[in-house]
């Protein structure tokens, strides 16, 4: 099963932006469950796009003006939701932000 971990947090989570993952990535890579991912620049740097009637519409900022914003994502591959929960719970961001576990659409 493949899941994306969406690492979310409010503005206070920004102070952790340069924390790194405290060895989590290395451990999970070695275990063979981490398949990719990255931290994201803050929502201030986001551009949101829609195409309507052939016209490209752009706006400054993220698509949803909510308190909680996505600060990063990881693609993992593991046996089931229980293992995904265990992997996500070990991520340092789980202690200050929230992590949404989303299964990928199976091919």
């Amino acid at each position: 099963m493949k899941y994306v971990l969406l690492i979310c947090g409010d503005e206070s989570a920004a102070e952790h932006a340069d924390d790194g993952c405290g060895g989590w990535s290395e451990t999970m890579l070695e275990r063979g469950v981490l398949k990719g991912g990255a931290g994201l620049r803050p929502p201030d740097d986001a551009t949101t796009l829609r195409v309507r009637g052939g016209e490209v519409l752009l706006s400054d900022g993220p698509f949803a003006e909510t308190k909680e914003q996505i600060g990063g994502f990881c693609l993992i591959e593991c046996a089931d939701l229980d293992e995904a929960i265990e992997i996500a719970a070990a991520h340092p961001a789980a202690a200050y932000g929230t992590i949404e576990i989303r299964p990928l659409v199976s091919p």
Partner: protein
Amino acid sequence: MRPGATPPRTPTAGTVPPPVEAAVAEAFREEWGQLVATLIRWTGDWDLAEECAQDAFALALRAWRRDGVPRRPGAWLTTAARNRAVDRLRREAAGAAKLREVAGAMREDGVPYAPEPGDEPDVPDDRLRLIFTCCHPALAPEARVALTLRTLAGLTTAEIARAFLVGEQAMAKRLARAKHKIRHAAIPYRVPPAHLLPERLPAVLAVLYLLFNEGYSATSGAGPMRPGLAAEAIRLGRVLVRLMPDEPEAAGLLALMLLHDSRRAARQDETGDLVVLEEQDRTRWDAARIAEGVALLDGALLRGRPGPYQVQAAIAACHATAARPEDTDWAQIAILYARLKGLVPSPVVELNRAVAVGMSAGPAAGLALLDALREWGALAGYHLLPAARADLLRRLGRTAEAGDAYREAMGLAATAAERRHLARRLAALE
């Protein structure tokens, strides 16, 4: 019976069902949960499992009429459901591996599946897998209970909807959503490994107790009790205690269920009406169940980790070990309810504490607590609050107010038996 229809669980009042219908209904009570649980393990498909189980019962109704009731209905149903699953998967061109697995119907350890009569279920058995999966914390609490009642206990969507006071369509949606999530998010079908058990157990205990209560004081149907559900909850409770011998709350729950269930025979009169605790013939209480419940509770309490189920079992033990109603240690019960209130604050616990205080410290003290509860409003619409007030008002000689309270309770009671009981109380007043 058309596919998708649920066989009758209880005979319709006033008619004696022909033996085959009765046998199918009996097999449904006994075998549904195991059948669905096993089919899910074989196919990994919850909807398919339920549908094939239903088809097997529909088939049984026709075949058993023709050929007679088989010696081992459970084995017959398992074979019929497995064949149905193989047909369905073949038509849907499922992968060869899955087809082989279902057709061969092998256990994970490679032993061919062959249910024997009186077979004690292995630990963990399929029903335990099913209940832990239904109670997975990634599912919403109300979905957990609904899913357990549907897949394990075989209640219809309509019955579960009534129990939760929601519409049938809303309940159908809730069940469908939970099953989709189990499939799409890959919630594993298993009993969790040891290190996860402590955090997974409370949800399972809550669901088992709800299942027991559904059987012990059914929210639907003509009679107040559905002993099959209560027995199923006790059976699963035993499996759970065997699996988790070091978990005092599992033992506490089993003790609680046994102690309640010990009163089953005395709880209904010949006409099926409810008999309240103080009026029950205590010689009809099941002494073996009481002894087993008390021993379980004592063993659990020794571990020094009390919890809500152990405290409730201790309260039930106070009642179960009193030879006569006047021997009941109400002061101890009032203390235990106060303790329970500290563990799980709830207006129903406070209602019970008020009743115990009314018995140990006098009706005026109990009434003061009940009136505070009534002002709080959390139990508006719950018939046992005016019923308890009525009893205390009666004992205080405030007959007119007691009559009003009994009438209020009758208007709120959900089952006919409870209404008749309250009507008798009211008649005795006048």
